[in-house]
């Protein structure tokens, strides 16, 4: 992913975000190129979710700018709905629509947000679900599914309209260990298609495998960015070293 024609798909410039008195992000600078996957790692509370929510305009930033395909999206004059239609966000807790079936969860955005024809969208949605190993579960309600299946439905829902970039927020951290693999497999599958991704994760082995670059977030600041070998094997900052050591001790590296 070395060649970089055109502007980056996502770009952060001096992004700052506070909740009241609490400054959660301080001057974030980061770029995600086309077809690139950048993994954001960092302790709980370091601001990973907030960073992703700011991109999807679910939170309003206080300073700086975020660009999507070279266009600023954090300007007050920009329609947030139009921006969100070009992005796919997956939540840690899945947040599937409980009153809808699996298929309807995937179709809702395709039809209501993207104005697709239901009959045309349905085969696409079914094919995507089958590809993520959910064939046969289309008419079930989400609460009948395992956590791993629910998260795969959430991936399908976010990916259904072929977003310019996927934003994945710790998609495996609410799952029992034996279910992690199937969700990571689904992400890998989308990754193989070259989907641009910005993902927060706790799974270091996965980050190493799927990400082109890793970005270490500490108390709202990016302390280190680089290829996985560099950040994970030879971290420069003591904070990164401490974080990785602690993960290792907890058996999650």
């Amino acid at each position, binding site marked *: 992913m070395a060649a970089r024609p055109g502007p980056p798909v996502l770009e952060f410039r001096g992004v700052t975000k506070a909740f009241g008195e609490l400054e959660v992000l301080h001057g974030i600078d980061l770029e995600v190129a086309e077809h690139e996957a950048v993994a954001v790692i960092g302790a709980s509370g370091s601001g990973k979710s907030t960073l992703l929510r700011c991109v*999807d305009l679910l939170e309003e930033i206080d300073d700086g700018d975020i660009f999507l395909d070279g266009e600023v999206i954090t300007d007050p004059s920009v329609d*947030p*709905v139009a921006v969100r239609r070009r992005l796919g966000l997956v939540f840690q807790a899945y947040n599937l*629509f409980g009153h809808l079936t699996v298929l309807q969860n995937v179709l*809702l955005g395709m039809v209501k947000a993207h104005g697709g024809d239901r009959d045309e969208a349905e085969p696409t949605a079914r094919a995507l679900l089958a590809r993520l190993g959910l064939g046969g579960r289309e008419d079930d309600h989400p609460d009948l599914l395992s956590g791993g299946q629910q998260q795969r439905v959430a991936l399908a829902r976010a990916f259904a309209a072929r977003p310019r970039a996927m934003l994945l927020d710790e998609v495996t951290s609410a799952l029992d260990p034996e279910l992690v693999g199937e969700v990571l497999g689904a992400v890998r599958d989308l990754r193989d298609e070259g989907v641009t991704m910005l993902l927060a994760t706790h799974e270091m082995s996965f980050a190493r495998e799927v990400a082109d670059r890793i970005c270490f977030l500490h108390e709202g600041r990016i302390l280190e960015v680089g290829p996985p070998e560099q950040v994970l094997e030879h971290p420069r900052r003591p904070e990164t070293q401490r974080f990785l050591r602690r993960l290792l001790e907890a058996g999650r590296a």
Partner: protein
Amino acid sequence: MIAPRPPLDAAVVVADRRAERAAARRAKARRGQLIAATSTLVIGGALVALILTSPGWPEVRDTFLSVEVFRESFPDILRAFWLDVRVFLIVEVAVLILGLLVALTRTVDAPALFPLRILAVVYTDLFRGIPTILLVYLIGFGVPALALEGLPTEPVVLGGIALTLSYGAYVSEVYRAGLRSVHRGQRDAALAIGLTERQALRHVILPQAVRRVGPPLLNDFIALQKDVALIAIIGVAGEAFRVAQIQAASDFNYTPLIAAAMLYLAITIPLARLLDRWERGHGGRTR
């Protein structure tokens, strides 16, 4: 030397244990039913005995439970009750719509709706705080007294409006609680797939909220069904309670009131059972 036990034996033993347990469970259930039946008989019998032996019983029997008076008055009251049912149905629909509109106005935070939001807050505070009976009086007698052109003056219409305003305030709060009970993550997810705020409300939040408030709404309907009788106090002719009251006054026998009470119960008890069943059925699956 001990021969290994054939596996067939083990299966037989297991089957026996299973049958034994099932029999024990059945015996326990039978014992429970027997105790329940006995205690019901004893307590019920004691109550009946107490009433039948009370000094005033013969008089109560004649003035409240006269079979003859009942037979005479029941057809008229039943006919009158049909008006109650119609008022109930119309007011019910109006309440559902008004309550939802008020709840939505208070939930959506579009700046343009600010004056409406204030109005909605004042409305709920006011109309929830005034006893329904007082509201029926105020509107039933107050509105005609204004003598304004175009305002309805018919007691039944005014009574219906008073009931709608009163119950609309309660029901809007029920809806609002339902809307608030839908997790924030549902709105986030709806926006994230590219829906507008309004679409998120319509396709994601509202359907889940309405599902959750079914039982409390039904509870309010039961209350409304019997409060329809309140319109009798502003002189709605042909309302069941009113008719019963007139009949009771005319020959100093209160049996017609019992007849009316039975008609209200004939609607409210099935509704209450329906509510029980609904809550049992949906209680576990609210997500």
